[in-house]
Structures are given as structure tokens and as C-alpha cells.
């Protein structure tokens, strides 16, 4: 009965179960995390020490250049804060509506809210400008919001409108997730004690989900600060010319533009390029800490209660006005602008003479890189998540848990730049696709680890304990018990990592100018043609967007299906 095979497997199991072997394995995983993810991500910070002289003489002393940097960073953070504020204002009632109301089509509404995440951000950039913005020299535009007021060409407003589409789903998701876990009983108890709906929600439930607010705010801020492809697409379209350092740029677009010139041979830009990346990284990390501390320390200040006014606001027209405004916002500010490119595609005709080889290669490259990055994420991320949640040294787990989030907070354009320098510094040249994949590993890694850590934390320790006392070695307990039970979390993490990788532009172009993934192609297609002063090929860009969106959307549906099954099992 195959005794030989069983013996062979058991002795292998014995080897793997030895403490020394397991320790070495975990050591390797932590080592990989540090050297493959963490150090490359933060490597550019070392330039502060090694290149400080250059920074002083070339950047700090150059008034014009410093103005460019501060304007760009100011625009990045201004937009990020304003967008997060709007997300909170409109996300809270929407999350409330989704969690606390029972209505038919709830899961459809959830899917619709998530749907903008399916569109690659470069596509959102194009779509938002087509709906809201001024696009010089473009004929045949479908009538959108721009036709009412002539459209906006303000970089601030166009980026705010863009980031509403990229961040709003994140905010609603994280608020709804926390709200879902808060026991309705507290609110019921408050209402039975005589509080109106509004008073109960405001004084009892809201203070309980400060952590949800923090998560939502951090996700939105990080996403808005990090975004490159959509920003470059939007700014290119409204400027009506090829972007250069004198265009209105935010931080990530400035990195993209300077990286482009640097790759094209302007090596004198190196200090400025690294300096702006360093600033973006440092400010983002600082912001993460500040937001976390603020939301945990900050108490929602209105302890005072106005019973009659709040009771009046809880009934009749007021809640209906609130819900109406929320859904109007969702439709006009988020959904329609996200998919408006479809209207453009419907009203214009296909471009002649498209290079289909490049088109297909771009798609294959995108999917290939996303698949490879996700595979590496899983290989390293699952053991790391096990170490974080089940490791013997609790403090090490806590530290790793925080460090894992760094690549998510660091703007991906700065991350890509840092990573490119890191490997070139180590003498690795000419493996651009490999380097781009490593960059994608770095910024998608947190998705896998976060989800698996969440799954492991939600899992009753009793299962493993029982499995161990029934004679299972740690590895057997993982493979037979933990792994099947957290598979939905693993899949969710993998799908998030995969879709995030597919839509990414900034990290790709800042690692290498030669790796033309689909989102990079999209940004290239819409660059102004110097002869006609029009976007080069908006229609083909639209086609690429459509393909990427459909694939990503299917992935999101899959994720919803898988996570729903997890709830049923629990």
C-alpha cells in the first residue's frame, strides 16, 4: 500500500518539523522580506547621506527647482487631504446605509461601489477628464459635465475628481467592514434608553469605530499620494502638451517626468529626482504615524446632546435628503466619471494602423508580471503572516506587522525609483522585467500579508491546539487545518495583489523606461502628438482599458464570491 512513499514523506516531515529547520525557514522568509521588499523600498533614503552634497548644491540652492518640488508636494498632499475629507463625509452615510439597511440588491450595490477599482487608474484619469475637464484640441467628445460649464483645467480640481474615483470604494469598504463588526445591541440599548437614531449613532456607534476611520483615512491618503498613472494621464490631457517640469505636477507625476528625462540622458537630474522621492516617502510615513495617533487619541468632541433637534433630524425628510445626496454623490462624482470613457468609445471610430503586436505584448507583460509578483507574494507572505500571528516572539511579530505596511504607504513611483537604484547599485543591470516584477512584489506584498494575518487572527486558536494534541506536527496542522480554513483570505489577498499589479503605472516607469506594460502603454497612447497637438491614440488606449477592466472586474467578482462563502462557513 505504498509504504515506501509514506515513509519517505514522513521522514521529510520529520526533518521539516525540527525546530532548527523551522527556525531557519522563518529566518529565510524574514531575510527575503527585508532584502526583497523593505530595503529596496527605502533604499533611496540612503541618498540623503551619500548624496547630501549634491542635494545641497544642485537642489536646495536652486530656487526654481525647489519651487517645483514644493508645488508638486503641496499639490499631492492638498489633494490627498481634501479627497479623504470628502470620502469621509459621503462614505460614512453610504457605509451606514449598506450595513444597517436590508434591501434587495444589496450585493449588487456593493459590487457597483467596488467597480471603479476594476478600471486601471490611467483609465480613470482619462475617463474623469473626458467627463469633467478641458481637453484642448480634441474633437468628437461626448457630452459630459464639461458641456454644462465648459470643463475645468485646474490641476487641483481635476486630481480631486480623479481621486474620488480611485479612493471612494476603499473608504466605503473599510467603514462598512468595521461597522459590520460593531454590535447593533449597543445602539439598540441607547435607543431603548430614549436616544434618537441620530444621537445613538453619533454618541455610541461612531466613537467605537475610530480604528475604522483610521484605516479608511490611511488607505485613501496612501492611495491618493501614491497614484501616478491616472495623474499623468489626467494632467497630460488637460495641459494639451507633453508634460515637462514646468507643467502643473504633483509629487508622483514630477518623479515620473524627471525619471523620463533622466532616462533620456539628463543625468544632472539625479539629486533632484531622489530628493523629491525622499520627501514623498518621509512625508507619507510621517502622515501614517500622525493619522494613526490622531484617530486613536482624538475623541469625537460632541458629548453634548440636543434631544429635540436630533430627534427631528432622525425622522421625516432629513434622512431622505441625506441618503439622496449620498447616492447623487456616488453616481455623479464616482461612478459616471469612472466609466465615461465608454461613452467616448461608443461615439468615435477605431484608429487605423495600430501596432497590435505592442498592444498584445503590453497585455501579456502586465498579466505575466502580475502573476509572477502574486506568486512570490504568496510564497513569502503566507509564512511571514504565520510568523506575525503565531511566532514565539510577540514583539518581533508586532514590528514585522508594522514594517509590512511600509511599501503600501510609500508612493509607488518613489518606491520604483528606490528599487531601481537599489538593484543597479548592487550591479544588477539589464534585467528590467525582473526588476519591475520585484517592484510589483514590493508594493503588492502588504495585500497578501494583511489578508492572511487577518484570516489567521480571526481563526480560533482552538483548532490548531486541538490538532497538535491529536498528534499533528506544526506543518501538518497548517496544511490540513489552518490552510483550508484561511484559504478565502489567501485568495482575497492574492486577487487584490494581482489586480493592483495590473493597474500600476508609477512603479513600472520609475524602475525602467523600457518595460511597456499595458498601463504604461495607456499613458503613452494619450501623450500629445507634437504635430497635431492632440492625444496620440485615445481610442486604442480605451481598448486596453476595457480589456484590463474586464479581467480585473472578473477577479473582483471572484473575490466577493470567495469571501461571501467564508462568512457562510464561519
Amino acid at each position, binding site marked *: *500500500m505504498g*509504504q515506501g512513499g*509514506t515513509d519517505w514523506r*514522513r521522514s521529510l516531515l520529520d526533518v521539516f518539523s525540527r525546530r532548527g529547520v523551522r527556525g531557519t525557514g522563518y529566518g529565510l522568509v524574514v531575510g527575503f522580506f527585508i532584502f526583497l521588499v523593505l530595503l529596496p523600498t527605502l533604499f533611496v533614503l540612503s541618498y540623503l547621506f551619500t548624496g547630501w552634497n549634491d542635494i545641497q548644491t544642485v537642489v536646495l540652492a536652486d530656487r526654481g527647482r525647489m519651487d517645483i518640488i514644493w508645488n508638486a508636494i503641496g499639490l499631492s498632499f492638498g489633494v490627498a487631504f481634501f479627497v479623504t475629507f470628502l470620502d469621509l463625509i459621503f462614505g460614512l452615510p453610504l457605509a451606514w446605509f449598506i450595513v444597517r439597511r436590508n434591501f434587495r440588491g444589496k450585493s449588487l450595490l456593493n459590487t457597483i461601489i467596488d467597480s471603479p477599482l476594476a478600471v486601471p487608474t490611467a483609465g480613470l484619469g482619462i475617463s474623469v477628464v473626458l467627463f469633467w475637464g478641458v481637453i484642448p484640441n480634441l474633437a468628437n467628445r461626448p457630452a459630459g459635465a464639461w458641456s454644462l460649464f465648459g470643463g475645468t483645467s485646474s490641476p487641483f480640481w481635476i486630481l480631486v475628481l480623479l481621486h474620488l474615483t480611485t479612493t471612494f470604494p476603499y473608504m466605503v469598504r473599510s467603514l462598512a467592514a468595521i461597522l459590520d463588526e460593531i454590535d447593533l445591541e449597543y445602539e439598540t440599548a441607547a435607543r431603548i434608553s430614549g436616544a434618537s437614531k441620530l444621537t445613538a449613532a453619533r454618541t455610541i456607534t461612531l466613537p467605537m469605530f475610530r480604528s475604522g476611520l483610521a484605516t479608511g483615512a490611511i488607505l485613501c491618503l496612501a492611495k491618493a499620494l501614491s497614484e501616478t498613472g491616472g495623474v499623468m494621464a489626467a494632467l497630460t490631457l488637460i495641459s494639451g502638451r507633453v508634460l515637462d517640469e514646468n507643467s502643473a505636477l504633483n509629487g508622483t507625476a514630477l518623479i515620473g517626468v524627471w525619471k523620463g528625462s533622466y532616462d533620456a540622458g539628463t543625468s544632472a537630474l539625479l539629486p533632484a529626482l531622489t530628493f523629491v522621492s525622499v520627501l514623498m516617502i518621509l512625508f507619507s510615513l510621517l502622515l501614517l504615524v500622525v493619522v494613526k495617533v490622531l484617530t486613536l487619541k482624538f475623541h469625537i468632541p460632541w458629548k453634548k446632546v440636543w434631544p429635540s433637534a436630533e430627534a427631528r433630524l432622525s425622522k421625516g425628510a432629513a434622512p431622505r435628503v441625506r441618503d439622496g445626496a449620498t447616492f447623487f454623490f456616488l453616481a455623479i462624482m464616482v461612478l459616471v466619471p469612472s466609466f465615461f470613457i465608454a461613452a467616448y468609445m461608443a461615439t468615435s471610430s477605431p484608429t487605423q494602423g495600430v501596432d497590435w503586436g505592442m498592444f498584445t505584448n503590453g497585455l501579456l507583460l502586465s498579466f505575466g508580471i502580475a502573476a509572477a509578483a502574486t506568486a512570490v507574494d504568496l510564497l513569502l507572505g503566507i509564512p511571514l503572516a504565520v510568523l506575525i500571528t503565531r511566532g514565539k516572539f510577540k514583539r518581533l511579530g508586532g514590528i514585522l506587522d508594522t514594517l509590512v505596511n511600509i511599501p503600501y504607504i510609500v508612493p509607488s513611483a518613489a518606491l520604483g525609483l528606490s528599487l531601481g537604484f537599489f538593484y543597479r547599485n548592487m550591479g544588477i543591470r539589464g534585467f528590467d522585467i525582473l526588476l519591475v516584477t520585484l517592484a510589483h512584489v514590493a508594493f503588492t506584498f502588504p495585500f497578501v500579508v494583511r489578508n492572511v494575518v487577518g484570516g489567521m487572527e480571526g481563526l*480560533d486558536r*482552538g*483548532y490548531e*491546539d*486541538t*490538532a*497538535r*494534541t*491529536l*498528534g*499533528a*506536527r*506544526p506543518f*501538518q496542522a497548517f496544511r*490540513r*487545518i489552518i490552510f*483550508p*480554513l484561511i484559504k478565502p483570505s489567501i485568495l482575497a489577498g492574492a486577487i487584490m495583489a494581482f489586480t493592483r499589479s495590473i493597474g500600476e503605472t508609477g512603479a513600472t516607469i520609475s524602475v525602467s523606461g523600457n518595460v511597456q506594460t499595458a498601463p504604461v502603454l495607456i499613458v503613452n497612447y494619450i501623450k500629445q502628438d507634437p504635430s497635431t497637438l492632440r492625444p496620440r491614440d485615445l481610442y486604442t488606449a480605451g481598448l486596453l482599458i476595457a480589456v484590463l477592466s474586464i479581467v480585473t472586474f472578473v477577479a473582483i467578482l471572484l473575490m466577493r464570491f470567495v469571501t461571501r462563502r467564508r462568512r457562510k*462557513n464561519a
Partner: protein
Amino acid sequence: MPNILLRGIAKRFDGRIAIDHIDLEVKNGEYMAILGPTGAGKTTLLRMIAGLTQPDEGDVLIGGRDVTKLPPEERGLTYMSQTYSLFPHLSMWENVRFSPEVKGLPPTDTDRLAREMLLLVNLLDRRDAFPRELSGGMQQRTALARALAAGTNVLLLDEPLRALDARLRIALRLSIRKLCKDLGITALHVTHDQEEALLVADRVAILRHGKIEQLGLSRQVYDDPSGPFVAQFLGEADFFLGEVDEVTPERTLLHSKTRHWEARPSKLHPGQDACLAVKSENVRVLKDGEDAINTFEAEVTRRLFLGKFLGFEMTSAETTQPVKVRLRAEEGGRIKEGSKVRLAVEPRNFMVFPIPPGGLAKELEVE
């Protein structure tokens, strides 16, 4: 050779003592219950034996072998948790097969074991069901079958009946004991339910504040408690205070400010402050004109219907605490709230203890 031997085992959590240097011996084939209030350290003790929590000090020996440093799977015992932890993604059949399978038994032996154990708990016909499809009682029985299929001769049971409703609990508690006895298994059964502990175990260990207060046969710990806490924790007891006058081989004589008491013999010495305890079912209500030793008067403040029994709370000049009295329904029928009665305690039912270091009231706190 003792099957489970603990030597000076101790554990602290964040500086708070959970288990305070416990020595304990569970004999081969013995069924022992660990009884204690919530937070006494029962689960911690069990988890340290299982290898799921590492003790700070002391040794754990199973079958004479020091297993203190070994992981759970190498200790040769099985642990059943409060919630059973049936693996939700596996059928009952697969759950019961789990242990022999991971231990590398040949498939035919594994199947045979799983079949035998499911048959033993009368669940063979539900073998393809998943845990969520079964009732609480069936889940409990499957968890037991799974634990037995592990083939170890030491079984640790952490509140195995807690999640069941009262009737089922009563039905299942003896069947666990019988299974263990039939299979010659040494069992350590943790519970906070005194009735369950007294009924199911050969010996009961009473755990409190991480220490064993008393270890003995069920009868012993009930009738001859080691101190006021155990006297009160098992059943219900009334307490009085006094000072020892004389100790003879037959009895202890005491007095308070107002009267004299006669109680069981004790090791106390004359002049020592003492507390007297009597189980509430051993307080007698005297008929009119009847005389006895240790009589005192009381007034009924509450009368509680307990089914077969009537419970009374009375006030008396002899103690500041309400006196609790438990009578069979037919005896207590005539006693109403507000009645004045004469009570008596036979000296052989009157236990005498030294006053505990922190005072009697503190000693009797349960939490």
C-alpha cells in the same frame, strides 16, 4: 506508576500568578476532576499539561517521562477543548480519522479505529455530516470519539459539557466516565460545576487562586472540607464565629459572647478564634418542645421554592450572615416568611476551622 505527575508547576501572566507551584498526581486509570471557580487557573493548568502553554517553573511527567519541553504532539495525550474545535471543513468521519492519519497509521487501521469510535458514541450513521449540521450533543460526542481515536491513554477534558443544555449535560456526564473507565484511560476533567465534579470523578481537586485547596474522594471533599472556602463552594454552608474552650477526642467545645457550641473534634487549641460551619441541609428545625444541643432561634425572611426542597433564609442573633436552611418540601411546608423557629445543629455536623488569614468574609469571596 502515576500517569500524570506535576512537580512544582507555576505560571504567571503579566506578573499575575495563574498557577502557584502545584504538585499533583493522577493515578493510572483514575478519573480526576479539577473543580474551581472562574479564574482559578483550571484551563491554564490543563493547557500546561497538554503542552499548549509553557510553565515558568516545574515539571510535567506523563507515564513517568518528563515531557515539560516536548511539543503537544509528542506528549502522548489528548486534549478536548470547551468548544470541541471540530474542524469545520472536515466531515465527522474525517474529523475522527484525523489523529491516526497524521500519526501515520496505515489506512486500514485508521478506518477501523474511526469506525469503532463513532460506533462507541452512536454516531456511525452520521459520519458524512459536517460539524455545523449536528446538534451540540452530537458535536460533543464526535469530539470525544476523535479524542479517543488518538489512542493515547491520557485524556484532558476542559469543561467538556459546558456548551450543552442542562438536561443533556446530565445525560452525557456519566457516559464520558464510563467510556474512559471501559478503555482504561486516565482522565483529567476540568469543570466549575460542583455537582458534575462530585458525580463523575474518583477524586476531586479543588483549585483556587492557582493552588489546590483540597484533593480527595468526592465524599471527603463534601463532608470533610479542608477549610471554609471548600465548605461553602461545595453545596451551601452557614458560618458562626467562636473561641475554642476545649478540644477532646470526641468534640470541640467553643463559646461566643452569648452562648456555647459543641462541634466536631479538631486540631485547634484552647483560646484560639475559630469559625464553625454547617451545610445548610444539616440545620434542623426543632418541633415545639423538642430539645437538642446547639439550638438557636431565628426568624424566616425568605422562603424559596426549589422543587424537591424548600430553601429558607433566616436572621439570627448568633451570626451577622443570613442563616440558610434547606428542608425537604414536606418538612418545611408549615414554615412561612415571618415565622419564628428554633434551629439546631448536631455536633458531628458542625465543622471547626481556624479563622483564615484574611478574615472569613474575604475567604468566602468566589471571584
